């Protein structure tokens, strides 16, 4: 039978049953291996000849890697191979981290989200990955295991540039954890893409806001920007404005402008840098207005 598309090139397949087995294997074959969870990015990178692994290390069978755990004091822990649809349909994620669901719904079609894993998305470290903004804004941590044991890293320190993380080639991420958000936290994920079919974002903004007695405005807002810098970034200048100035339309506009000034967009196949900057300002304002509405904060 004629092949309409080239097959995946040859590789060997390894399915560890524990983190230790995975790390031992990666230690032995560090630069020839590619660990993966859902495979939705990895297989395309192999097909496009962007990576050439000798071994694919399938993490889905490791005990606990497909579990979501929730503790009312400690928060949420999502195993490295949990597919996005499981996160989207989890009642505690909806109750405590709804903005993560908003963003996860932007990834691919329904059937792709049955395979694509949140942690895989993070490890790919695309500056336009939809789920990264909410994970950062909810102040998540990644739990890493390597030959020297386990350690955790704040997600904000995990990314080093487009496609680059602090993960070593003999390490894997076991899970991502989220603390319980401040009581009454509300927020939104606002993005635009070229189409509605889960195309990567041209620009996106994550906003979370909550009441804070000791700030001058009475509120604190957290803002991250997606697809407009080498990594997803917090905008401290905008956050400071919203902490110190009374919250009204003019303050929101100032904060949105601060977002446009803080970003460092590039021209690429999805958009021009100029358009991205304009859209960030618009999305930030829209996200802040929506969040204020959800907080019942009159403007």
């Amino acid at each position, binding site marked *: 039978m004629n092949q309409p598309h080239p097959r995946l*090139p040859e590789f060997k397949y390894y*399915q560890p049953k524990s983190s230790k087995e995975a790390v031992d294997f990666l230690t032995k074959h560090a630069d020839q291996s590619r660990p993966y969870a859902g*495979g939705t990015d990895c*297989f395309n990178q192999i097909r496009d000849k962007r990576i050439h692994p000798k071994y694919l290390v399938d993490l*889905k069978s490791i005990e606990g890697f497909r579990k979501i755990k929730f503790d009312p004091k400690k928060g949420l822990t999502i195993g490295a191979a949990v597919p996005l649809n499981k996160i989207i349909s989890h009642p505690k994620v909806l109750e405590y981290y709804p903005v993560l669901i908003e963003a996860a719904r932007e990834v*691919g079609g*329904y059937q*792709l989200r049955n395979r694509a894993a949140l942690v895989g998305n993070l490890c790919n470290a695309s500056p336009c990955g939809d789920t990264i903004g909410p994970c950062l804004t909810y102040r998540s941590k990644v739990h890493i295991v390597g030959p020297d044991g386990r350690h955790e890293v704040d997600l904000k320190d995990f990314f080093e540039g487009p496609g680059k993380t602090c993960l070593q080639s003999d390490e894997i991420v076991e899970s991502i954890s989220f603390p319980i958000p401040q009581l009454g936290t509300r927020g939104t994920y606002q993005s635009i893409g070229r189409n509605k*079919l889960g195309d990567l974002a041209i620009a996106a903004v994550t906003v979370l806001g909550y009441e804070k007695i000791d700030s001058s405005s009475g509120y604190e807002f957290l803002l991250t920007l997606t697809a407009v810098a080498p990594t997803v970034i917090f905008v401290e200048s905008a956050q400071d404005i919203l902490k110190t100035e009374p919250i009204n339309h003019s303050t929101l506009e100032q904060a949105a402008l601060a977002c446009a000034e803080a970003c460092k967009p590039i021209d690429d196949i999805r958009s021009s840098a100029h358009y991205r900057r304009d859209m960030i300002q618009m999305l930030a304002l829209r996200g802040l207005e929506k969040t204020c509405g959800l907080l019942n904060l009159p403007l």
Partner: protein
Amino acid sequence: MELIKIQVTVNGSKEILEVPPNLSLLNMLRENLTLTGTKSGCEAGECGACTVLLEGEPVNSCMVLAVECSGLSVETIEGLSQEEPMKKLQKAFMDLNAIQCGFCTPGMLISAFALLRRNPDPSDEEIKIALLGNLCRCTGYERIISAVKKAARR
């Protein structure tokens, strides 16, 4: 290349196969089992022509390795055609001419089938969201959405 022995249940029947690691579930179904109802489109997880059910959930079979399916169950358009609500969906697609070239139809039907199983009375918006990962280059989607609604109401 090394071959890996897998046991996979396809449309209710147990299959024991020896497959290379780089064989996708899509190619396993089409070539090893000659189940050509599942179509090969973009092979990048975007068009949905290759959608099948894996453990009852729709997946892009181009984005799944055959070796990952060992011990799991796969259902394709061939196996589901006698089940409800697939029969209703197929009739509604024919009645409303929701098919032109037909290439996207098996994947479209599987996604619609999975939707109706988890939500027997979906709204237009819910149908659009469920079928977002299935591209059709002919119909313009309106008739497909109408057909899914019609099947849901039967």
